């Protein structure tokens, strides 16, 4: 499946995103929250990489760090073969059209004082010199592409439903013809029936414009529907990265197993047959992760070595990557 013919559009190597904690009168640095703690993966052109994990595991931070909305703490990010991990200011600005983001909360991600037309046109104003007619033509084109009526151009975000707002956000992300889009839980804040519409729209757009997605979500069923490969995150690290079919049929990492067993089952007859793995305890604090494997405190199959050594993130024979001592 991945025989090296496909070109990686994004290459992330040992990416770290640590947020400092300041305390006391003198605001001294007393520690850091290791939101993303050394993740590595590649995304190939035209595919969708699903990034899943529970709340607070660093999915969103990873997405934002990849787009360089934060100054990263370590590691490297390569977009189309260009290292963007230390670019600043204008150099970074010039690369913005290549990579865009769709945000989680469609209400909060649109400026309430701007009309739909000006929201969608903002990227055009920033990066392209278009005449007024060209600009409006492009805005209408984008509105058509995401299924918004042209009459809505003058309206304000608060006049729309959640799904429509998300469409505005998507149109804005598409405005500059990016090749790579980070979708940061684009459906989490939406109603189930609307979720399907937005996901279908994302699929259609991917086909039409040849987009590459990093699809961040905690909804495993949706990721199964959309993703080509899936990466599972736990406490700032990727524990398993595998092609979709493999991951869902035969999860290797105990955390992936537990996560998959928690997916709601729509068929009541098969509900009883299923064995649920219930994890004990809470996620450890990312400012003070356990020694050894991050999952060792809750793992049902924990061994002595797990509490001492950090498991290596390595490739198995079937092409997937797992970070677990059980694989040794």
């Amino acid at each position, binding site marked *: 499946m991945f025989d090296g013919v496909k070109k990686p559009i994004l290459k992330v190597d040992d990416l770290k995103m640590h947020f400092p904690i300041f305390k006391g009168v003198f605001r001294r640095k007393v520690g850091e929250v290791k939101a993303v703690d050394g993740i590595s993966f590649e995304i190939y052109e035209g595919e969708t990489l699903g990034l899943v994990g529970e709340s607070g595991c660093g999915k969103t931070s990873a997405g934002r760090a990849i787009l360089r909305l934060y100054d990263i703490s370590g590691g490297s990010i390569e977009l189309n073969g260009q290292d963007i991990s230390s670019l600043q200011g204008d150099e970074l600005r010039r690369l913005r059209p290549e990579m865009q983001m769709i945000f989680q909360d469609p209400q909060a991600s649109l400026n309430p004082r701007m009309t739909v037309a000006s929201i969608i046109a903002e990227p055009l104003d920033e990066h392209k010199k278009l005449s007024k007619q060209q600009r409006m033509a492009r805005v209408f084109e984008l509105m058509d592409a995401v299924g918004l009526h042209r009459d809505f*151009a003058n309206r304000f975000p608060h006049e729309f439903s959640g799904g429509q707002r998300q469409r505005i956000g998507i149109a804005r992300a598409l405005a500059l013809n990016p090749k790579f889009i980070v979708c940061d839980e684009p459906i989490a804040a939406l109603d189930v029936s609307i979720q399907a519409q937005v996901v279908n729209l994302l699929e259609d757009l991917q086909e039409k414009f040849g987009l590459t997605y990093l699809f961040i979500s905690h909804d495993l069923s949706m990721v199964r529907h959309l993703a080509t490969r899936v990466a599972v995150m736990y406490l700032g690290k990727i524990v398993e990265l595998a092609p979709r079919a493999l991951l869902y049929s035969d999860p290797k990492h105990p955390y992936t197993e537990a996560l998959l067993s928690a997916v709601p089952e729509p068929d009541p007859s098969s509900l009883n047959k299923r064995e649920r793995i219930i994890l004990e305890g809470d996620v450890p604090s990312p400012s003070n992760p356990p020694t050894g494997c991050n999952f060792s405190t809750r793992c049902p199959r924990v061994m002595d070595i797990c509490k001492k050594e950090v498991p290596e993130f390595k490739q198995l024979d079937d092409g997937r990557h797992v970070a677990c001592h059980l694989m040794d």
Partner: protein
Amino acid sequence: MTDLNTNPIGEIERITVSENPRSQWWDVWAQFKTHKGAVLGMTFFVLIILLVLIGPYIWTLAPDRPDLLARNKGPSMGHPLGTDQLGRDSLAQMLAGGRISLAVGVVAMTLSLVVGSLVGVLAGYFKRLDGMLMRFTDLFLALPLLPLLLVIIMLFRDTLRAAFGLEAGIFILIVFVIGITSWMQTARIVRGDVLALKEQEFVLAARSIGTPPWRMIMRHILPNVMSPIMVSATLGIANAIITESALSFLGLGFPSDFPTWGRLLFDSTNFMTLSPERVIWPGLAISLTVLSVNYMGDGLRDALDPRIRGR
């Protein structure tokens, strides 16, 4: 058989496809018009401005010409608002005074608003400037204002008068002094709002688009902190007019032959028992101006917020 050609409900309404977005200012005006208080306030404010601008050309009596035969007179045909203790016409003085009071109010308010918003936005948006600018604001808040005003005026009055002439010199001084001593509240409020706004996702979205800081402030931050700025502005005019009156009262504002509403008010307090209407006119003018500006600000704030617009 029913006739299919007639529609009992009427013609189907044509949906017009707007090719270009209409100007937002049209919407703002439409909403502003629905606010009765605001329209009333604006009408009154415009009226006052026209009165003080055009009035002196119609009512041509000089405000500073004493008429010793007609001192402390009540309202009459020759002097509709009466005369003061030197026989100067009160109406002429009110009109001339209004020019200066309004000019001081508007200019000083603009100055304090610009300084306050600038400091507030910079402190809120750029973390590196925050500590310094806010301590600077605290410093100004901690200064005892009246003594400061007195010292500034004592020090600079004569130099400015020499440079810009008697009238302009003192005007610049008063406006400047009021402006730089009243921007702190605006700065604090704006900073707080900017801090909250900066964490909103749409600001992050703009960053991901590559909007540089300056345009980020102009496009995303400033329009969203419009409400507190608007409120500060309306209160600022009132504040400036009243501060100017206080300065005139202390003999440090405009010279006494130079009428302003505040000056007239304070001059008249001595004669309150003799002719109470002399206190009422400038007092009424100040209060009504302040009130009308407040209502206007109220209406403008609502009209500028698209979430309220259209309700």
